[in-house]
């Protein structure tokens, strides 16, 4: 499991626009980089990030090798009602990880 750092507020007022920030440990090997012996390392990146809130996709991103190692993403969503914010990352070589955070809307 890759280490992740997620920042989702625990509580928010209904209708409030909240900012979600995520960092995940991943090399994002570009597929263009020669190693010490001149052999190009095969591409190994996270290709897609999806954020579901209360079951509905609220944000999705397709990533290319131009995204930096240990990908950082920040975006917003409207706090509608209390529920689970689920974030998943999918990538090359079967990489898949899902994390959830509870959000209480008052």
């Amino acid at each position: 499991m890759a280490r992740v750092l997620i920042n989702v507020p625990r509580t928010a007022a209904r209708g409030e626009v909240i900012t979600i920030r995520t960092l995940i440990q991943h090399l994002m090997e570009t597929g263009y980089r020669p190693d010490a012996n001149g052999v190009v390392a095969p591409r190994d990146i996270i290709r897609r990030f999806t954020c579901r809130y209360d079951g509905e996709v609220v944000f999705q991103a397709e990533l290319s090798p131009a995204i930096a190692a240990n990908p950082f993403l920040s975006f917003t969503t409207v706090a509608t009602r209390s529920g689970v914010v689920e974030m998943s990352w999918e990538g090359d070589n079967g990489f898949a990880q899902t994390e959830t955070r509870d959000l209480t809307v008052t």
Partner: protein
Amino acid sequence: MIHRALMLALLALPALAQERRSGFEDMAPQTQAMQRDDTSNPGMLWALEGEDLFRQPAGPAGQSCASCHAEGSMQGVAARYPAWDTARQAPIDLAGRIAQCRTDRQGAPPLARESQGLLALSAHVGQQSRGLPIAPPADPRLDAARVQGAALYAERRGQLDLSCAQCHDDHPGRRLAGSIIPQAHPTGYPLYRLEWQALGSLQRRLRGCMTGVRAEPFAYGAPEYIAIELFLMSRAAGLAVETPAVRP
């Protein structure tokens, strides 16, 4: 002996004529923002991993670091390393101490220098001194190594025949091929260097500066690095610990 006394006297003076400043100050505002905000500082991923490792049992007795070290007991520790290691009768850096605790006290398999686990634990321990002033111990047993560190810092080396001081004391703030030469204060280690795209130790940083002048770097863990670190820490006394920092 006179020579040594003089060196120590020089060390006691404010290290540089100009205002001392962390490498943080020389960074672009965007890189500073990345360090300031924990959720965008990739170094925090390693610190978090270290926090987990600290609580994870390892070794035959199934003890974790936390079994012997209470929550909060690591506060301020990183600010006063390297320290004197009575067992080995030599100075030891923080990573060395952690590795020692792991093998000798925990009885767990050793963690190599620059391994992910040792960097993570060092970042977690270091983070607990964040914001505290660097406070080198007054232990006189460290003096000889500190003097050696000062000499290594002043010594010209490599095909380019440059000393650390020629860049970091004579030309800080100047640009060297796009990079600003910092004053070389070891305030943020282990840190996330954008160039590495990973967390790395002070020794890795020093290796970069040595190969940069085409000098053969010392092996990881070499006493020379610990001597240089002792000198750099005394030169940086009072500056705040930034671990895990971000640098270009």
